[in-house]
């Protein structure tokens, strides 16, 4: 009898657990559902803006798989893919992946020649590695063939760094990001502080805007892993430094970089206590939550601050150019994503994938792309009067793009080794495990040990 009861409880507990565990996969699938349902209602307005392409659907029935980073632009993909499918008959299945997973999964796909993904978003910093190893297809033949219809001169010059390696294009520009300074106009006005124009003013403003009681912090930063490494490199760029020596070899532990790391560390005194552990999403949450006054970051999240569903700071944010060190010729960090075609994919799929790239980066579609949280790559998008009226910060982005530097994070094939070492040891410095000098020395040692 007792045993029966125990067994009964066990069965109960198990069903409970199976239910809970079962929720895992279902929950990850769920986000993909709503856009699919939205699609039918979304198509009619789109059909009127897009030119009628009824003549031929040469790749009808081809199925493409797209590996996309879960950045803001994934929302634009969700909206646009059904439209593309409708127009061309090409089916695009999107797999939404986080930064680390996206890289691990696609590189495993490349080195194993398994061609699981036909299209993939390529971070600007991976372009050298993908190009040098021939992971993604060089698009130059396609581009030469279709140059006329694509109006390639319209694409911002700096945007080509999103996929160029040694003169060839291994990914097509998809989403251009400019490093800007977001700030709370209300808090700065209240404290009587002008938006900082230099790094020195940034530090002073961060200090002045931090409240003792922990209710408000001066600045939100990134401190962990790839994100921390990239934030540090952004500050190196803004201080006019470099992590390469004159011969192009990696040299992170120079006295200048040590000083910049110490400056970076002093900013953390005015950041939320958890910032040393922040990745991009947590920094974003902190700013949207309203506990920080300033945040340097990619221009992409700006529209989200005006969305009351995800933001506590609607109408309070302004944006300005990323401050550079005093006396330095202004130059702004540029980043973002290209979109590449798997070199192992079937040629028919590659052609169909190129159709997708051409379509999504075309002048007309780019407007919808921007309206659905995509990021711009074309001058025509950035200067479109209608869009500028909707998004008044576009001229600022245009200026940042004009003076953009897409190479402050070296885009060579060994980039991931540099990023991993910096990610580990910048975090070690920020958490007090190492001094700035030791941290960068150790990063340098690790980089040299892992370089092939």
């Amino acid at each position, binding site marked *: 009898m007792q045993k029966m009861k125990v067994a009964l409880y066990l069965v109960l507990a198990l069903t*409970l657990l199976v239910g809970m565990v079962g929720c895992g996969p279902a929950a990850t699938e769920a986000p993909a559902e709503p856009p699919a349902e939205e699609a039918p209602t979304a198509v009619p307005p789109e059909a009127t803006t897009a030119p009628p392409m009824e003549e031929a659907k040469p790749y009808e029935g081809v199925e493409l798989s797209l590996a996309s980073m879960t950045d803001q632009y994934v929302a634009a993909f969700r909206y646009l893919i059904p439209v593309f499918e409708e127009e061309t008959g090409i089916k695009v299945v999107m797999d939404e992946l986080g930064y680390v997973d996206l890289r691990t999964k696609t590189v495993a796909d490349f080195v194993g020649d398994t061609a699981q993904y036909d299209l993939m978003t390529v971070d600007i910093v991976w372009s050298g590695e993908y190009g040098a190893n021939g992971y993604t297809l060089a698009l130059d033949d396609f581009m030469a063939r279709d140059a006329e219809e694509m109006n390639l001169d319209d694409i911002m010059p700096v945007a080509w760094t999103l996929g160029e390696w040694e003169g060839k294009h291994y990914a097509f520009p998809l989403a251009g990001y400019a490093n800007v300074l977001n700030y709370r106009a209300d808090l700065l006005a209240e404290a009587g502080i002008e938006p900082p124009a230099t790094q020195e003013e940034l530090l002073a403003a961060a200090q002045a805007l931090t409240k003792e009681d922990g209710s408000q912090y001066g600045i939100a930063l990134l401190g962990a892993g790839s994100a921390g490494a990239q934030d540090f490199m952004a500050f190196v760029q803004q201080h006019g430094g470099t992590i390469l020596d004159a011969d192009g070899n990696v040299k992170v532990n120079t006295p200048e970089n040590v000083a910049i790391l110490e400056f970076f560390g002093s900013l953390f005194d005015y950041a939320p*206590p*958890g910032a*040393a*552990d922040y990745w991009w999403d947590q920094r974003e949450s902190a700013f949207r939550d309203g506990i920080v006054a300033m945040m340097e970051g990619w221009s992409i999240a700006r529209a989200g601050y005006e969305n009351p569903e995800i933001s506590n700071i609607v109408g309070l944010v302004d944006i300005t150019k990323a401050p550079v060190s005093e006396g330095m010729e202004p130059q702004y960090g540029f980043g973002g994503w290209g979109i590449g075609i798997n070199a192992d994919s079937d040629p028919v799929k590659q052609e169909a994938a190129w159709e997708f790239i051409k379509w999504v980066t075309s002048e007309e579609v780019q407007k919808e792309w921007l309206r659905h949280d995509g990021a711009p790559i074309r001058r025509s998008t950035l200067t479109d009067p209608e869009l500028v009226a909707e998004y008044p910060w576009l001229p600022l982005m245009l200026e940042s793009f004009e003076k953009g530097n897409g190479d402050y994070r070296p885009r060579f094939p060994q980039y991931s080794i540099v990023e991993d070492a910096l990610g580990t040891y910048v*975090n070690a410095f920020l958490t007090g495990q190492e001094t700035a000098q030791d941290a960068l020395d150790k990063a340098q040692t690790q980089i040299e040990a892992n370089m092939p």
Partner: protein
Amino acid sequence: MTQSFTKTMRRFITNDGSYLLLALPLLIFVVVIAIYPLFFSFRISLFDYRLTDPNQTQTFVGFGNYLRAFTDEVITNSVKATLVYVAGTVVVEILLGLGMALLLSAETRIAQIIRSFLLIPMALPPLVVGLVWKSLYNVDFGIIPYYLAQLGIDLGRGPLSELHLAMPSIILVDVWEWTPLVMILFLAGIKSLPTEPYEAATVDGASRLQSFWYLTLPLLKPTFLVVLLLRTMQSFKVFDTIYATTAGGPGTLTTVLNYQIYKVGLTFFDMGYAAALANILLVIVAILSILYIMVLERQQL
């Protein structure tokens, strides 16, 4: 046990072959799943073999990868971190698990209900557990630092980013998840104990503490061995919870060996070195397991 083993072996060899035939599926399975990969990993650990190399050249380097591991400061650190993690989790889990098993061994209704609920953490995927704890620990938005702050305890950069808190914090996650398993194993051990020695002890006037110390503990030795082996091996292999919580940080503090192997293998795709590190981990675990068995078996005889 050794006797029955030799007997089986003798029968195995002298028999007409039907034994072998019946064991064949299992043998094939073990060779394909365990022995072949083991040899394969040993083979590639002797090569400089990088998947990201476009020419896929494999240069023979002998024990070069192993020598590199012994001089690599990152590896020595990660071995230390692993040992701290294993010691922390295994000791705490055994103490807590044994205590809970004794507490809940009574067949009362409440004990039964609590026991079945305690199984929940064990059945959750470690990655999910890690993500949940990461948000609980988040110093700016998480619930644990919030309530500790209410009590006047300042966590600084947060449980996962402070040097002295990071390791205990991830040990706590592991303890939360795996103590129930240890409890179940001890519970099974306690339930299967003979009652006669206890009756004799009661007749002889032994106190409950004495009968626990002189009877329960020695009689539970086989269970201790199982728990120690199981938990030590699992703790050495920890990956998911660390991947989801600290990702090896702050700095390199919680980069355990298995996490470092993942980084070398799946971030740098340096397969030769990763295989060498995996083999080193295997040897460490094997040595520890043999030590456990020797110590506990000898005491029993």
